[in-house]
């Protein structure tokens, strides 16, 4: 049976997305299969130079990062590590995960104030006239 999996990393603070990935203290790692959450764990960011954060995130097997603000160099490092980044997201973590699954992360209340133009450039995926989310379908790999 073929199935598709994706590991999502979300820096969190209390029950919300951390405002700044570069200085976030905790990372929520969500394992999903066919769009459904199958497990989750929390990781503490080690006290590293922010530029080593990309390596830490990549070493956790994370393919997609949903985060608040982040510095351009860190975004460069994440992209260079092959990680897809959905930046400038705000809100309650559970609602963000649900919105991501449903392809609704582009709704205004999930976008950090002042960042509307910054987000969404080339992020939205449309298939057969139906919005399928922020690169969501792309990450589901067969047979893993």
């Amino acid at each position, binding site marked *: 049976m073929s199935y598709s999996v994706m590991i999502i990393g979300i820096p969190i603070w209390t029950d919300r997305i951390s405002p*700044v990935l570069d200085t976030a203290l905790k990372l929520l790692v969500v394992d999903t299969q066919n769009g459904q959450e199958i497990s989750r764990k929390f990781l503490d960011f080690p006290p590293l130079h922010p530029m080593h954060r990309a390596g830490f995130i990549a070493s956790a097997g994370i393919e997609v990062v949903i985060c608040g603000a982040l510095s351009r160099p860190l975004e460069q490092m994440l992209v260079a590590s092959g990680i897809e980044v959905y930046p400038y997201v705000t809100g309650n973590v559970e609602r963000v995960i649900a919105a991501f699954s449903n392809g609704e992360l582009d709704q205004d209340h999930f976008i950090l104030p002042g960042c509307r133009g910054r987000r969404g450039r080339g992020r939205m995926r449309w298939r057969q006239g139906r919005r399928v989310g922020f690169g969501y379908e792309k990450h589901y790999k067969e047979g893993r």
Partner: protein
Amino acid sequence: MDPTNREREARDIVLDSIADGVFTVDRKWLITSFNRAAEQITGVPRDEAIGQRCFDIFRASICESDCALRKTLTTGQPVVNKTIYIIDPNGKQIPISISTALLKDSEGNVVGGVETFRDLSAEVELRRELEKRYSFEDIISKSREMLKIFDTLPVVAESDSTVLIEGESGTGKELVARAIHNLSRRHDKPMITVNCGALPDTLLESELFGYKAGAFTDARKDKPGRFALAEGGTIFLDEIADISSALQVRLLRVLQERTYEPLGGTEPVVADVRVIVAHNKSLEALVKTGEFREDLYYRINVLKIELPPLRERKEDIPLLIDHFISRFNKLKNKLIADVTPDVLSLLMAYDYPGNIRELENIIERAFVLCRGSTINIEDLPEQLRQGVTGTHVPSSSLDELEKRFICEILRKHNWNRTRVAAELGVHKSTLWRKMKKLGISVSD
């Protein structure tokens, strides 16, 4: 107008007249006022900020771990001139100085907090310029080749092996060396740069290894060399192939045995220094022509980073232009917003033998000449303007005209090829083939 609105309006007028950013929060951390300077520094419009959680607006390095407002509201004590950074909507880290205080109503009840902040970007930029202290943050790229390099940098930094950086002049070899040093365990120790091509060989030897008193006529006291100054840190030897073969032998010994002898010294000194070397030509080619020692080449070619010239990563030119405009605005206290589409087309079409440094110089020159808020063709150097007559009619080939036109549309759509293809009414792959033919390179 009711009294509350009148009061609010009067308060906003006062706050807007202040040059520092000011915002206030209530006890639930929701923003209740946000002045004009705060809008300018954070990049968030007031109407989007009011009523939002302060950390979603301010996005500061201390929000989670060491919030100054929280500290003030908890202890009642103000925080004064604490230096932190915030992240603006473009991912720029903006250094600011913050101060906080309690906000009380007319009866003395604490109703929230107030935070004032000052943009330190200009001061930081000036200091960096004076100290020539640039870092990874100054490497601007979205090109595939550079992203591969970014990906390897942390791994390269973690190892303690010698690194060879090759790239034409102006491609940013020193920036990469500094990034490696900053990411390494040696980051809190010095990084010493030596341009081997700038000093005569005899002087270079004493510069690198130092000398003992009495080593030669004028050596009255011991002088530490650059290796000693870099102890525990990193030494960056630029233009390495410019050193003589005799000095190459000495350097080989340092790399092999991790020891050196200062001039006039008798005891070897142990060197705990990471060595990064760079050159603007292929060292392998110089080995083949006998201009560089083969054994030294193999000793330094442990980890090799090849930096592509700017002409091979032209998709970075708009990003670099924005970066330099932002930097020179701070350094020269100007408010230049952009370049005209004509200027961008010319800058995209140019081959930059001097690479990024040449582009930086072009923008710096334009800053001197530019009188408005946009850099025009007239602000560019003559060699770039050649081929342009009048204001908008370039005297060039059809291909060049086509290239400029496509560059202009690409710029308009922020280099999104799908949107550009849609505007031009061609398929995306047709646009891609055309761009390849015209030498316009954009990473996916």
